[in-house]
């Protein structure tokens, strides 16, 4: 059944087909612009750790740019890119057209209005609290919620029009992710249970679920479609995929409080979070081994296809980053790493290593199939290697530095010693960040080629396979 799902190219009319392609392209292009902006800001604030006077004044102060960097990455880049990919995957795997192209465009406008308004508001100092990933004033977060609801409605409507009885697994994740994302946004914005320590509990829930129940499901949905598509081989075990879906759904929402270990939050809440952080190994190892087994024996295809390489890195980051997350949740290790830069390393290993790499793999793999234009091999190579090496330097620096920071505190050294000890690791972060940002410029150029360029049809391997599949 699933071999058909990923192979289905549909009997869409030329008009419907063009509508889908322009929606996919437009989402990708605006997401790319947000990526460039968000990581440009990220690079600027990385430099500020070495040169605190660099970029003075209220508008460029670190504390205002930091939430601008995270929110623009989350809600500008990743959200828009994943919903765009979600539309393409849903329509193609269901062999149908979009439920409504107009709704898709409305969603895109809402996403962009929210991200733009949120960025301006934060820079002017209008903020709803230093509450991680939900700093935007509440009415801007309602615009974002509207965008998510529109997307969920449109995606469900698209899947409802499918030509087969079954629903391919990708669509479970993509529809689920958007609906769960809407619930997360609602829980985060309602004010009545968010006073004092009550708000801390909600923060733990929100900051964790925004990552793991909004971005991760959409990214997994993209992998479940792209991987079989690019390899022209069904997923290793469909049943294992279904198992990972339900266990992820049951375990993940429970573990948010591990962000506030040793805080005055009830001890039982923290302990449950730790227990289920361990349980998360089940869906994580289940999901990643499923992907790796799908790739088994196809090393040659892998190294000749950058889309596959991007997805491979995404899968490895999923395995390593999520397992690291489980380890971090143990009280003994949290004692060293909590509140240090190790956490920043972890969040980049996951949001960058998993989410961004999967997004790029999906775009390089699927956008050329949609537009018929491909990025150059050199462009993809530059993007891949600079992003991978940059991310490696970034995460390694902060992981080592963060450990030293934590040990300094445990040994009772004067606090300023931990600031001094971080200096060389902050340089490492800046170097890694510079490489990552440079790779995004190349990505921008690649996206331009895939959308508006005059390039030939997608790479021979993919194009050939795509033809076979249609036949």
């Amino acid at each position, binding site marked *: 059944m699933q071999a058909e799902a990923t192979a289905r190219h549909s009997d869409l009319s030329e008009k419907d087909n063009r509508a889908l392609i322009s929606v996919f392209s437009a989402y990708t292009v605006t997401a790319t612009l947000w990526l460039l902006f968000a990581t440009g800001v990220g690079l600027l604030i990385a430099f500020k750790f070495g040169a605190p006077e660099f970029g003075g004044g209220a508008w460029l102060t670190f504390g205002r740019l930091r939430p601008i960097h995270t929110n623009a990455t989350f809600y500008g880049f990743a959200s828009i890119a994943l919903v765009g990919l979600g539309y393409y995957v849903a329509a193609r795997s269901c062999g149908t057209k979009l439920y409504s192209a107009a709704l898709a465009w409305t969603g895109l406008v809402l996403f962009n209005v929210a991200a733009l308004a949120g960025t301006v508001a934060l820079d002017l100092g209008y903020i709803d609290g230093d*509450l991680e990933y939900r700093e935007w004033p509440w009415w801007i977060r309602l615009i974002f919620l509207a965008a998510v609801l529109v997307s969920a409605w449109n995606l469900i409507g698209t899947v409802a029009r499918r030509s087969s009885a079954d629903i391919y697994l990708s669509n479970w994740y993509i529809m689920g992710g958007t609906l769960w994302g809407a619930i997360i946004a609602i829980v985060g914005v309602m004010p009545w249970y968010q006073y004092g320590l009550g*708000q801390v509990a909600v923060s733990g829930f929100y900051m964790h679920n925004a990552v793991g129940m909004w971005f991760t499901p959409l990214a997994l949905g993209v992998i479940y479609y792209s991987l079989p598509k690019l390899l022209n081989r069904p997923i290793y075990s469909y049943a294992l995929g279904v198992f990972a879906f339900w266990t992820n759904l*049951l375990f993940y*929402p429970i573990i948010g409080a591990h962000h506030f270990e040793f805080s005055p939050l009830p001890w039982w*809440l923290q302990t449950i979070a730790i227990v289920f952080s361990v349980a998360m190994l089940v869906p994580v190892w289940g999901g990643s081994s499923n992907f790796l087994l799908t790739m088994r024996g196809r090393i040659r295809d892998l190294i000749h296809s950058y889309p596959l390489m991007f997805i491979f890195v995404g899968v490895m980051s999923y395995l390593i980053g999520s397992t690291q997350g489980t380890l971090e949740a143990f009280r003994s290790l949290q*004692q060293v790493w909590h509140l*240090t830069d190790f956490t920043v390393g972890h969040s980049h290993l996951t949001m960058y290593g998993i989410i961004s790499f999967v997004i790029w793999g999906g775009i390089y793999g699927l956008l050329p199939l949609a537009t018929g234009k491909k990025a150059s091999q050199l462009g993809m190579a530059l993007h891949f290697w600079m992003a991978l090496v940059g991310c490696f330097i970034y995460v390694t620096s902060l992981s080592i530095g963060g450990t030293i920071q934590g040990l300094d505190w445990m040994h009772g050294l004067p606090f300023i010693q931990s600031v001094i000890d971080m200096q060389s690791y902050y340089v490492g972060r800046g170097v890694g960040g510079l490489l990552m940002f440079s790779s995004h410029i190349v990505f921008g150029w690649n996206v331009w080629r895939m959308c508006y360029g005059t390039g030939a049809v997608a790479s021979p391997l993919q194009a050939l396979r795509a033809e076979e599949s249609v036949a």
Partner: protein
Amino acid sequence: MNKLLLIVGGSTLVYACLAWTMGVWPGIELSKLPAGPGVEPLTALQSEGREVYVANGCSYCHTQQVRPLDADKVFGRPSAPGDFKYQTPELLGSERTGPDLTNIGARQPSSVWQYIHLYNPRAVVPESIMPSFNWMFAVVAQAPAGVTPVSLPRNYAPAGGVVVPTHQAEALIAYLAALKQPALPASEAPSASGGAPSATGASSGAAPTTAKASAAAAPVASYDATKGAALYTANCSACHQASGEGLPGAFPSLKGDAVVNKDDATKHVDVVLNGLHDARVSGVVYSSVMPPFSGTLSDAEIADLIDYERSSWGNHGAPITAAQVGAERAKAK
């Protein structure tokens, strides 16, 4: 259609239940927590300062949560649920690029220091990487009546005129001054049985070791220079500076100071234990407040610290022992 309903509806229902159980419901219950004893709402000016703190993202580098861990003892007693009654939006934070500020009003009571530090942190802490908030200040030819200009060291001061804080800066500093942990009643204090917390610092071992050392009639004054230097960096150098010279007009010099070099250390011990305000040193009156350290440092630690000051920067005060500090502490009671 049924299959779609099952997957989409089923998973969303499950998720909504979990979101209620792990997000909303704890939120509802914990929002009802009463204030702990001595926990007061902020004044209008302090709340305004809190808004400045939030708008400029101070909590991305400064936490406001003291964990029940040895590493956190320098920042105060462990935070209790009752401390957060009036803290909305919450400011617990997730990173400690800079120190925790839960108890900063008690740890650094000097607003003179806070203003200099806010204007340019490196004027008082050379290694700091905190941004300058000089845009919260104005340079004027002469300070208006009732406003004290910021006493900046010469190389950080503008070429002409004086620096005065704007209303924003005043509100922010008022907020920081209000960040003081009220003492927990003995029954609630976690592990308060040991009496005086032998908290801070430089001791490479765990805190209990130091406590034992001070209790068991001090093993004679073999002054630990490493510990003394680290204690000085952690507790004193923000004002008196690593050079011991202080900042002219703001913080008195310890180098060559009469109290530090006098062989009778009674006054020196008294100042460290109990703090000082409106001090007159070499004819200059300093308006900065020095905090007391009797609550945070043990006798042995204070002895190491004082011996470090008495033997550094060309000072020649007679060394003291932990027993002497203990005697002074007993006298103060």
